[in-house]
């Protein structure tokens, strides 16, 4: 079922055919299915099998791109020709040095046969099990359960040729009571590790607990942020300032502060696609092996991540963080990890005199990337903690918060961590207790 040879053949055909000075080819294929549910019913069930080939050609430092989702010989040649034609019309990029050369890549087994063979009926039965937990309580479930795999291959005319495959199972659900809601999620290479019973029981309890929320005034509060919220926040921080392009364009909050304290000493954030707790291929979208990059260690700024283009500007090595070309965002991390603390979250909550527990952020966005100010709403269960106990649900709040300032006020991180989807790939992160978090508005529910 996993036919890497198709991808290898496509890569070789494009590289062998191209007469450009340098050529890079990205080929993908995959099959992904998703079953969506709302109002306790499955309302959408989709499946897509597709493939693609993208060609980057360089002629006299002029770069062209073209792509197709047909991998027959004629279409591959036509796409290479189109890429070369486009390159000839472009202005040369004087700062371009070269595509990368081959380096050894470790292998990583990221395929679960159970995930690949998970059928629509299997997904439906899993969702039915979830409904069986929540419906008796007059709760309404909505969500999406997806399973599938992707094969990714990169080759270039300097000798790089590498192919990898990932399977992924991803369950997300929002369970709604009359006046409250709760969110649950789980993502894994292996669908067998998604525990529907545990997720169902957890969201059922939190949905029931979230009912009849009280009004609460906006203001500055201590907060307990769940791993979902922490993943969201550090992902925006990474987008704003961990990549070398942000540094080179003078946009990164870490800019000229390498070696200086930038956030609290409990905070360490790094990227490692090879960590057992992340889901990441061992190579980037230029076929360069992914390196572990420590961005912040004990609150001190340490390093940026690079692709070949940004690395060559500084005469350093690529760290293997290239995104698919054409890419205007520069290199970015897709497998963030944040250090845990030593205290279970239950014990951390007991230390709160008065704090707001946030289960999830919603519709977050960076308002000021240079000062790392982001905004968003709380959602799916926001609670007031008083005297060490979760006291009452409260209505959702809007926050407008400087992320660096928030991370400078981390009082505690939980010993537990979870892998969560983020705006950049995934993030394996703990709960966080933060001394001051700025809530600037409120809504009516």
């Amino acid at each position: 079922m996993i036919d890497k040879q198709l991808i290898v053949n496509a890569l070789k055909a494009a590289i062998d055919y191209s007469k450009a000075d340098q050529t890079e080819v990205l080929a993908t294929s995959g099959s992904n299915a998703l079953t969506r549910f709302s109002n306790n019913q499955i309302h959408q069930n989709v499946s897509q099998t597709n493939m693609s080939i993208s060609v980057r050609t360089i002629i006299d430092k002029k770069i062209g791109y073209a792509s197709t989702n047909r991998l027959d010989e004629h279409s591959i040649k036509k796409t290479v020709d189109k890429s070369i034609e486009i390159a000839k019309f472009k202005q040369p990029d004087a700062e371009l040095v070269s595509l990368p050369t081959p380096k050894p890549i470790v292998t990583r087994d990221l395929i679960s046969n159970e995930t690949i063979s998970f059928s629509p009926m299997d997904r439906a039965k899993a969702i039915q099990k979830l409904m069986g937990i929540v419906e008796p309580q007059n709760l309404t479930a909505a969500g999406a359960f997806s399973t599938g795999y992707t094969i990714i291959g990169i080759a270039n005319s300097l000798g790089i040729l590498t192919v990898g495959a990932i399977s992924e199972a991803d369950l997300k659900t929002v369970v709604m009571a009359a006046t409250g809601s709760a969110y649950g999620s789980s993502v894994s290479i292996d669908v067998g590790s998604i525990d529907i019973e545990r997720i169902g029981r957890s969201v059922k309890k939190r949905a029931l607990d979230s009912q009849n929320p009280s009004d609460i005034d906006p203001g500055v509060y201590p907060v307990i942020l769940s791993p979902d919220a922490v993943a969201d926040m550090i992902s925006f921080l990474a987008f704003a300032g961990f990549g070398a392009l942000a540094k080179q364009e003078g946009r990164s909050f870490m800019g000229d502060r390498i070696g200086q304290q930038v956030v609290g000493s409990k905070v360490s954030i790094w990227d490692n696609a090879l960590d057992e707790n992340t889901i990441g291929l061992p190579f980037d979208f230029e076929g360069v092996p992914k390196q572990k990059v420590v961005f912040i260690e004990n609150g001190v700024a340490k390093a940026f991540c690079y692709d070949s283009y940004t690395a060559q500007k500084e005469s350093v090595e690529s760290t293997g963080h290239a995104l698919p070309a054409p890419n205007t965002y520069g290199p970015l991390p897709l497998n963030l990890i944040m250090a845990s603390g030593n205290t279970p979250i239950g014990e951390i909550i007991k230390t709160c005199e008065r704090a707001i527990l946030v289960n999830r952020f919603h519709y977050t966005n960076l308002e000021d990337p240079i000062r790392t100010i982001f905004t968003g709403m709380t959602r799916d269960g926001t609670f007031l903690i008083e005297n060490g106990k979760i006291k009452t649900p409260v209505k959702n709040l809007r926050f407008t918060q400087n992320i660096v300032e928030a991370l400078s006020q981390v009082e505690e991180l939980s010993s537990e961590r979870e892998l969560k989807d983020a705006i950049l790939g995934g993030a394996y992160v703990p709960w966080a207790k933060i001394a001051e978090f700025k809530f600037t508005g409120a809504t009516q529910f």
Partner: protein
Amino acid sequence: EFDRVLGMEASFAGTSFLTIDKMSNFRYGSPIVNINADATIPGALGTFGYDDEGVPAQKFDIIKNGIFVGYLTSRETAPVIGQKSNGCMRADGWGKLPLIRMTNINLLPGNSTLDQMISEVKDGLYLATNRSWSIDDKRLNFQFATQVGWEIKNGKLGSMVKNPNYTGITPDFWGSCDAIAGKKEWRVWGLPNCGKGEPMQVAHVAHGAAPARFNNIKVGVGR
């Protein structure tokens, strides 16, 4: 979007505060606020001939004289409120399920001008070009930041302000609208990347608008 109202997007972007009971009786904005959907505007990004259920492109009211009067619907959803589809189902490609998507959603022109509106303001801001957006999961509390802004003092534009933002509650915000510029300053703005659905789909949509004035809006949030 009626599918949101019916809960079909609850696990992703959420639902809507515009529940069915509010149709034809809910004050969404001030009496000068008129918003329509029009998939027939020549050259606009949300224009097409037929939607993906084969329903012809149409023009219809959403907010009329400030009152909420209509949803964006589909053949799948319109019968719930005893209507026929008004042609808003689109998929972003051959391999995706059609969803209800905005077409060209327009704030209709009024009878003022930008210069006149500015001249009537004692103390305010002129904000231009949205750069970030955020709204809650029932579409009530929102916050947007813009690329640029200028102070307005005693009817005149003054200094440029840095990283302006503004926030509000949807019907309160539209309820505070007291002037909209006219046809001469009205144009359609295309948005090529409106996201919705699981798996994500990206739609081409557009918004026709002219400059408009809103009162007592909270700005400089968190600054």
